[in-house]
């Protein structure tokens, strides 16, 4: 059974990355607890629009927890207080009536703010362009069983492939490091036979691009693992470290 709650929202408002931002406080009244967090923001935006004010800008797309578009830091936690959940799948029943919610964008040098809660994550795309792919001949799809893949490798690669590139790892990391993202992409492809021919150049190029984008260094605090909506393990960072070490030795 859903019920209605009243909330106080302290939302980060910023015109663009060049102008300084500040918090603005809004009263979100009669919020249905069946709403998702983004639906709650939609509701507040309708109110703001009716009042002739600028609605809050936030990233979103599928609203099913699989696209990696949404994300904000809610009360100091990326994607909010619920583990293993994206912001779009966080429902208002997890909050209490009368609660104050502080909503901020991901903060990292490599994620400049577009507007309000929307951040520019094209640095992730450039890391992917650097090596997050496999080169294959075009044509008909190959026979699925032509290349045998060990069960353990397939499982690990599948776990790593769950990364939706939302950037919560960077937002949670005290150093703004993207190593969980890059580690999972490297694991996903390097563990499989299809990714093996380019595995050395892949890890070298992706790490190089990651550094070039201005992401920080992992200090093994493992906040990323805890914040990841797909609960990707930091063992993928260790795997990337190993792959990098091996690829660096000629």
């Amino acid at each position, binding site marked *: 059974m859903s019920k209605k709650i009243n909330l106080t929202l302290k939302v980060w408002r910023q015109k663009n990355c060049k102008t300084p931002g500040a918090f603005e406080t809004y009263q979100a009244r009669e919020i249905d607890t069946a709403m998702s967090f983004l639906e709650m923001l939609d509701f507040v935006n309708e109110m703001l629009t009716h009042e002739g004010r600028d609605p809050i800008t936030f990233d979103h797309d599928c609203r099913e927890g699989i696209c990696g578009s949404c994300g904000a830091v809610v009360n100091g936690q990326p994607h909010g207080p619920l583990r293993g959940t994206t912001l779009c799948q966080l429902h208002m029943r997890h909050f209490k009536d009368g609660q104050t919610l502080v909503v901020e964008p991901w903060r990292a040098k*490599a994620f400049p703010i577009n507007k309000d809660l929307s951040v520019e994550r094209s640095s992730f795309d450039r890391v992917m362009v650097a090596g997050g792919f496999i080169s294959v001949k075009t044509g008909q799809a190959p026979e699925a069983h032509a290349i045998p893949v060990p069960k353990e490798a397939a499982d690990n690669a599948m776990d790593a492939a769950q990364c939706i590139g939302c950037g919560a790892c960077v937002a949670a990391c005290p150093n703004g490091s993207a*190593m969980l993202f890059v580690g999972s992409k490297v694991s996903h492809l390097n563990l499989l036979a299809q990714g093996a021919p380019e595995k050395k150049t892949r890890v070298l190029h992706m790490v190089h691009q990651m550094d070039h984008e201005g992401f*920080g260094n992992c200090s093994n605090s493992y*906040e990323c693992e805890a914040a990841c909506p797909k609960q990707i393990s930091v063992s993928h960072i260790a795997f990337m*470290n*190993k792959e990098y*070490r091996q690829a660096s030795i000629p």
Partner: protein
Amino acid sequence: MFSNSSIFKKQVVAFTGLLLIFFIFTHLGGNLFIYAGPGVFNSYAHKLHSVGPLLLLPRTLLFIIFVIHITFTCLVVIENIKARGGHKRYSMQKSVGNRSMAESIMPYSGLYIFVFVIFHIIDFAFANQHGVRSFLHGRSYGLYGIVFNSFKDPVYDLLYIFFICFLGLHLCHGVQSLVQTSGFRPKWASVIKMISDYFALLMILGFSSIPIYVYILSRP
């Protein structure tokens, strides 16, 4: 590409850290000779110094390892500060659950260790082994006497134990970190964490036991 990369820098810190851990372990082994009395302790110190110029090589190596460890850590920390995107990053910062206190104070514990190590070298390694500080009951006891006279002072003991606790915290995160950074994360990663914690505790107990022992022994 390789030498400037974040992972390379971290792996250098991890490898030099491993070498420093070996040194700390052997250093504790040497220190524990104090329990065997002044004769054994001084003969150990004397044997170490009697190799003369040969001692210069490991000392220089140790110095280089120490400098590399600190330099690369500083590079990593500076990059991390830049990458964060602002000094006060979030108005409400909440640990999601995995961050340990030892990890969050790594640069500070490292800085304190650095300052104390310099003081420690000047205080013990470069001390005049037959000077005033080596005298006990009107007779010179060499390095044993210097250690004994230093650890008689409870303030000195507290500072030393405080330093050892910081070293322990540094090790407790450092040992498990170097395994991860080197690229080894076995399925039994929790065991590595446990080994790391117990190793740090062992070092704290081992090093701290000496000032406590001397202090108790020096009481009338």
